[in-house]
């Protein structure tokens, strides 16, 4: 039996009928069409599906859509500014932090969440904040550099 839920995603209200076993990531991707959130493992191991729910990064594959009822969600599509790339995204581009790009939306959101809590993190804090986001391409170095770069620019 479907249940009706309300979500506020990237400042837009949605009222949706969802199956009780549907995950948030599936609703975001396939029902709403926000495909920037990626699915890499569906069991909470890889972090590709990271979104910000009520201010905290979560693996949206581990959240049932019904659990997200009434919550405020930010996906990667909500990060881009009207004027173009968010400074964090600009740093990712500039520093070469993007290769295959499949982990990138989740990485950007984990990083953004970190910088909101801690605008000037040190390297260990950056690495800890993204330790739930697997990347197989970069060896993480340029991702760490990008987050550090953005932090410097935004707190200058």
């Amino acid at each position: 039996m479907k249940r009706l839920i309300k979500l506020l995603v990237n400042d837009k209200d949605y009222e949706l009928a969802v199956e009780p076993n549907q995950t948030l990531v599936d609703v975001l991707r396939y029902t709403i069409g926000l495909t920037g959130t990626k699915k890499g493992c569906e069991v909470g191991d890889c972090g590709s599906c990271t979104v910000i729910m009520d201010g905290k990064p979560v693996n949206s594959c581990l959240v049932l859509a019904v659990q997200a009822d009434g919550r405020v969600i930010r996906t990667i599509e909500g990060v881009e500014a009207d004027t173009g790339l968010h400074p964090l995204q600009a740093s990712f581009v500039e520093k070469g932090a993007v290769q295959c790009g499949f982990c990138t939306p989740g990485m950007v959101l984990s990083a953004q969440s970190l910088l909101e809590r801690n605008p000037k993190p040190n390297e260990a804090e950056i690495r800890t904040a993204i330790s739930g986001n697997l990347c197989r391409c970069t060896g993480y170095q340029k991702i760490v550099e990008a987050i550090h770069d953005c932090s410097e620019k935004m707190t200058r």
Partner: protein
Amino acid sequence: MSEYNVINSRAPRLDAPGKATGRAKYVDDMSMPGMLYGAILQSPLAHARILNIDTSRARSLPGVKAVVTAKEAGLIKYGVSPARYDETLYCHDKVRYVGDELAAVAAVDLETAMEALSLIQVDYEELPAVFTVEEAMAEGAPLLHADYPRNISAEVHQEFGNVEAGFKECDLIKTTTFVNKRQDAAFLEPHGCLAEFDLFGQLTLHTSTQVPHYVMRTVAMVLGIPVGKIRVVKPYVGGGFGPKCEATPLEMSACLLAKVTGKPVKMNYSREQVFLHSRARHQFIHTITTGVKKDGTLVALTNECHLEGGAYTSFGIATVYYSGSLLGGPYKLPNMKYDGYRIFTNRPACGAQRGHGGVAARAAWEQQLDMIAVELGIDPMELRLRNIMSTGDVTCNVLDMSSLGMKECVEAVRDGSDWNAKRGKMSRGKGVGIACGFFVSGAGYPIYRSDTFHSTVVIKLAEDGGTAQVLTGSAEIGQGSDTTMAMIAAEALGVKYSDVRVTSGDTDLAVDLGAYSSRQTLMTGHATKEAAEDVKRQVIEVLAQDLSIPPEDIDFKNGLVVFKNGTVDFSRVRTRYIQEHRGWTDPPTGDLTFKEAARMAFLAKGTIVGTGKYKPGQLGGKHKGAAVGTSPAYGCSAQVVEVTVDMDTGKVTIDRMTDAHDCGLAVNITSVEGQMEGSLSMGMGEALFEEVKFDSKGKILNANLGEYKIPTALDMPNVKTIIVESNEPNGPFGAKEVGEGAIMPTIPAILNAVYDATGVWIHELPLTPERVYRAIQQAKK
């Protein structure tokens, strides 16, 4: 200051903004009206005869649109190497591993498709299974494939020089046996695809692949569709590293189901299915004997290798050749003998993974070289330098090092890591190790025997002359090939990087063998450069005529026309261009621009299209198997790794990595570093954590990214990357590979550092705390 305007810089990647904003489309981000969802039934048993498959209940489930088995798919054999086509799309007589494909279903949604799978009744007669090389080769062992006695899927026997005579001259002969573990490539995006037939019977397959070209050919062969009726399109791909180098049952099932139902069919592997499909790194068991003179001069090497290959051959013939041929360098070695055996087991088939076939061999040998250095009392760095090859050297197995900055790499990591102050001089539990390696810059021959071009490229100018569009079949899988091609095209044409667009990964655009064997920078790069030069020539010809000057006097640089013999009156051209563009906002001023010249060319000749192509010339030796390992160029690396080993727990921590890689000319410096850093991360994972584990019935125990551990941001240290630029005569602008060569030294450098820290040699991967602890305890006895 670089002599170039575009290449050899840190130009931002073309695809990065799209990927950083979630706009970039991967295959599962696509959907089509009326799309069905497919799913595959896989064997729960490792080895069994199929007695009967009953699909009737699945077929009658509401929402199911098609169920296909070998009956519908036929029994056409396919694989990677034509010499070993040993797979059929679905099993018909028996299953050979847990995960072997039996049937596929298309339904209105995934849930219904999965339910339908559970309704297919398969009756089996279980057969005895073999899971290790030893079991599989034992007398009387059950055979996976009747035609392959002792389960040998491929074997190689090569000798270069005279090993026996060589060993007689040696002062020290060392033999060791080294074992790695089966790996998973653990790319973040599971395979997915979406297949659709149009109303004229033309098939379009969107798929997460490294090789659209080979997928097209395999689908054509297996499903009996002419190549010209198939278009394979690769959207953005979330990593490949090797296992996405061949057509999958997923892709062929989607195509077949789309054909049967007349609807678009989408399919994805789950993460578990990625592990089951595998096609990743083999387990290699190397027994290596090296003979040297007392000054450390290498004289002879014998290498015997058994590869645990899984149920089918996949890339295995190439793999078993590579694990021999890639020890030919980067040291001067006059005598080398190789005996390789790839063995079928009742496990998922292994295939190609970054550093194809050479990674374990390299680890085994580089570790042994350190053992020899220690025994002879020679610094391991020095031992390597005494034997190092340089540009122009040819290995005993006829690999021509047309450029090789190997010595420069060793010296760079020695100085960059402070080696001389550290080796053997740090406190117990801390150590530093070195290793080297090299890799092909593109396979010299296609996988199927053919005189085909390896890459063709088309460059088309926009009618206003302002944009050059590169059309290529090459595969951007995250390594940055689109950006590389844009940079090469911009440089060769003389326009700005921002004025080049790349459309790639589509078999309709051009021919390209794809992203494997570290080939695209050199091969697609060559074709791109040639196409750009073709365009440039055409534009110059028209402009020369318009200005009544010789074409040799004209060049393009950075989007501007350069007149080599002083000022030329181009006012007529400018006036005409401006007349052509009344009301447009960007009238050119100052120097004559490429855009104006290109518009004149369009007015004279219509759409300006240039083409380029590449295939290597005659390469390598004449011996059997010479095709594997032969390449127009070789990249090489040296690495120094610094570790801390907890002597009480055996835990290894990587403190520092210094990596030097010779990539010829670095087209994009940031991307080269990215390949180096990523390679080291993957190598570190294989050295310390990674192992696909099985239960006693052949089922994978850790088919997920929680229990199959790859490095996280907390495991990986920062890498000091040093780019060594030789000038590769066979590469476009002197460029060659970095994507795979960089992984070669990582594992042995770690092994050698662990020895320096503990005084213990460990010949088995991964270096788990338990294994290291036991080795330390054993050494105390």
